Every structure is written in C-alpha cells, then in structure tokens.
C-alpha cells in the first residue's frame, strides 16, 4: 500500500519522535534494543496511539493482532520496513 520507502534509520527517528510526542520518551532513549513497555514505560493505551501515529507516518497498516509481537523499537522498525515492501 505504501509508495514511500524509509531507511531503517529514518524509521527509528520517526518512531522516537512519535514516542516523545505521545509518551514523553526522551528521543535518546528510544533505541532499537529498548522494550516499549518495560524500558520505555509506554502503557497499553499509549501503545495504541504510537501504532496509529506510526501507520499514518509510514503509510503502513499494523493490525492489532500483530501489535503484540512488537516488543522492542527494533521489532517495530523491522515490521514497518517489511510492510513498506
């Protein structure tokens, strides 16, 4: 569905901006190895906001069933990269 293709670096940067906006995560903390819930303290409602904002920004669909498998920022980056084709 996407006509855009972002680099891995661009996706990390975009996600870190979303995380700061939605959950107040320090952009320096939002690295690929970090877990959303345990290390970045993103609660379940805020995670919904992160997913919706990421869909809008990267032009992808992230079905609810897949969200549970996205434990770390890196998981989300890989998912978005793949979804963008």
């Amino acid at each position, binding site marked *: 569905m996407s006509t855009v293709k972002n680099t891995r670096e661009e996706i990390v940067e975009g996600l870190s901006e979303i995380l700061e906006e939605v959950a*107040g995560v320090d952009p320096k903390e939002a690295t690929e190895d970090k877990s959303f819930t345990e290390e970045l303290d993103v609660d379940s*409602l805020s995670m919904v*906001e992160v997913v919706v904002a990421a869909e809008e920004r990267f032009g992808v669909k992230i079905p609810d069933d897949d969200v549970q498998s996205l434990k770390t920022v890196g998981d989300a980056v890989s998912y978005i990269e793949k979804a963008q084709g």
Partner: protein
Amino acid sequence: MTDVVVTGLGATTPLGGDVPSTWRALLDGVSGVGALTQEWAAELPVRIAAQLAVDPGEKIPRVRQRRLDRSEQIALIAATEAFADAGMADAALDPERLGVCFGSGIGGAITLLEQDDILEEKGPRRVSPHTVPMLMPNGPAAWVGLELGAKAGVHAPTSACATSSEALAWGLDMIKSGRADVVVAGGAEAVVHPLPIAGFASMKAMSTRNDDPTRASRPWDRNRDGFVLGEGAGAVVLERADHAAARGARVYARLAGAGMTSDAFDIVQPDPDGGIRAMRMAMRLADVAATDIGHVNAHATSTPVGDMGEVRGISEAVGTHPVLTSTKSMTGHLLGAAGAVESIAVIMALYEGVIPPTINLDEPDDALNLDVAAHTARKAELTAAMNNSFGFGGHNVSLVFTKS
C-alpha cells in the same frame, strides 16, 4: 458527635491560579470575564466568558495533558494545592481513611466534542484511546483519588450547578459516618466551547453583553440579563476535628452542616420552596440559629428570575439580617465548580473576617430587601455563614460553616 473542619484549600479560577491570588482578586473586586477572541466564537450570540487566569499547562506537563480532559487537569491542580495546604505531605495519612468527593457538572465535554470531530474527519481508528477516561464524569474524582492515593472511596456527585456543594455535603457525611478521616471535596468545570455556550444561549440563560464583558455578570442589578460562563476548579480538605487537632493542623473553619433537597417541580425552573428547605435543613443539622448566620454567599447567577427568588428564600429561611454577596459577579458561573469555589470564599470570609464584594451592582433591583456587600469588600466579624448552590434538575444544597 463528630466535628468536621476545613484544613486545606485549593483552586484555579478566572481570577488566579491558586487560592491566595483568587482570594486577593475577589477582595479587590476584579472581574474575570473577558471577550472570547477564538475564531469559533465569532458566530455565537454570546462572545464572553470567564476563562482561567493561568493556563493549566503551567502545572501539568505536556504528555500528561494528552491524557487528561481540561476539567481533570484543573481538578488535579486544585486538589493538590488543597492537600499541600493542609500539610498532608507530613501527615502520615492512612490511605484507607482518605476519601475523595469530586464532581463536575458536565464532565469531559471538550474531549467528547474534539474526538467527535476526529471521528467525523479521520475515522474511528484515529479516536484517542484515552477518550473514555477523559470524558467520563467521574474522571476528575478518579484522577484526584489516584494522585492522592485515596482508598476510602472516590465519589463523583453530579447535580449541575450544585455539584461541588453536594460534593462537600457528601464528604461531610463520609467523615460523620466513620468511613473516612479526611476527604478531599470539590469540583471542576471546563466547558468553554461553542456547543455548551450555544446550548445555554438557546435557553436564553446567558448574558449577551458582548461589548462590555467585565460588567456582564451583575447579580441583583436591575439591568442583569443572564449568567456568564466560567471555568475553574475548587477543592477543600475536610477533616475530622480530633484528627486535625492531633496533628496540629491549621483550621480555617468548621463545616457545621449541609442541607440537601430536591424540588420535584421542573427540570430547569427552580421552586423557591426547595432552596428554603435546604437552608433550614443546613441550619438545623449544623445546630446554628438563623440569627447567627451573618453572611450568605448566594447562588445568585445574574439571571432575571433566579436572583430575586433566592433573595425571597433567604429572607424567609434565614431573615433579612445576613450580608449577601455573589462571587459570580467576578468569577462568572463556574457550574460544577461554583459550590466549591464559593465555599472557599465563605471559609476565607470567616477566617479573615471580610466579605468579598458583589461587583456591578449599580442599580439594585427594586425588590432587593437585603444588605449586599456591593462594590467593595466588607469587614465583618462572623461566627457562622452560609453558601447556597442550586442546580438544573431541582437540586438545592446549602452549607453552613462556622468560625473555628
């Protein structure tokens, strides 16, 4: 008999971001009413309101604001000020003995309306997952309970413009019935938005003095033409008197009694008898004689009919001796927060011996037979004072405070 006292006060209002600044402005007779300059106001018949003097964003961080309706933000600001003012940080309070009674007249209307815009424009998936806890009418109470760690029960009475006086009344009952030692009670309202304004304006309940905002709220004046919408929050810490004494707390006043009645008459028109019965009940339960009530902070919203109906009720239930005032002449009508903010005015009047003025009372209504503290604050050594709040739905609450 369990005595209940007031040990902490908190508020954010059109006159100031806390109690000291609000109280100072009340005594100085400052109007918090101004023009609505937002684009959405241009087409409305009413283009004035009493908006908060201090933006809640100064105290609530940006990310937290995303999860809190404006009414919830100001509830937290008022409640935390009251809690700190009561010295609760050092009080080693048992959470299971701490309760909350905190209401809102309308609830998270701004959230509801903003999220509805998103639903219409972008579809359901874009609606915020925080929507429901932001718009639920118990939201302000629940957030206050979370913030303060209250485990004795969190309650959210809702009775339109009587809401937060009712919250104080139920808080008093919580302590008297032995369910709590300390209750943070109050109310918050933030609905300065075109829909509620249009709704009230359609009822012809609001002042349309758009060209003269600071003179629009003028209770008992011959030229009054309706209320002015305001936004704000007020909170008081109610505490069992012996609990307060044991920790050496400062006591502002005693909440001696609360009267609550319902009209069973009309959904919006008041039945004066309901207010009279509430005032009598409050004095009876407070064990205070009518002759001892030196001051009444009236509901007086600046509407043509309501203001004089209440005066007749006060004359009958209390007498013609109390000095009246209407703080709504300065704050506008804070709806669900009015009762708490006006209770704070009564408590401070008792504590400092000075009654805030009613501004804009230039030409008193011919039928006004009671003494009003018009234009300037009035020194008065008070032993007991009353606060009245009446709400759409026929809810009447009258609170009697005494000097401690």
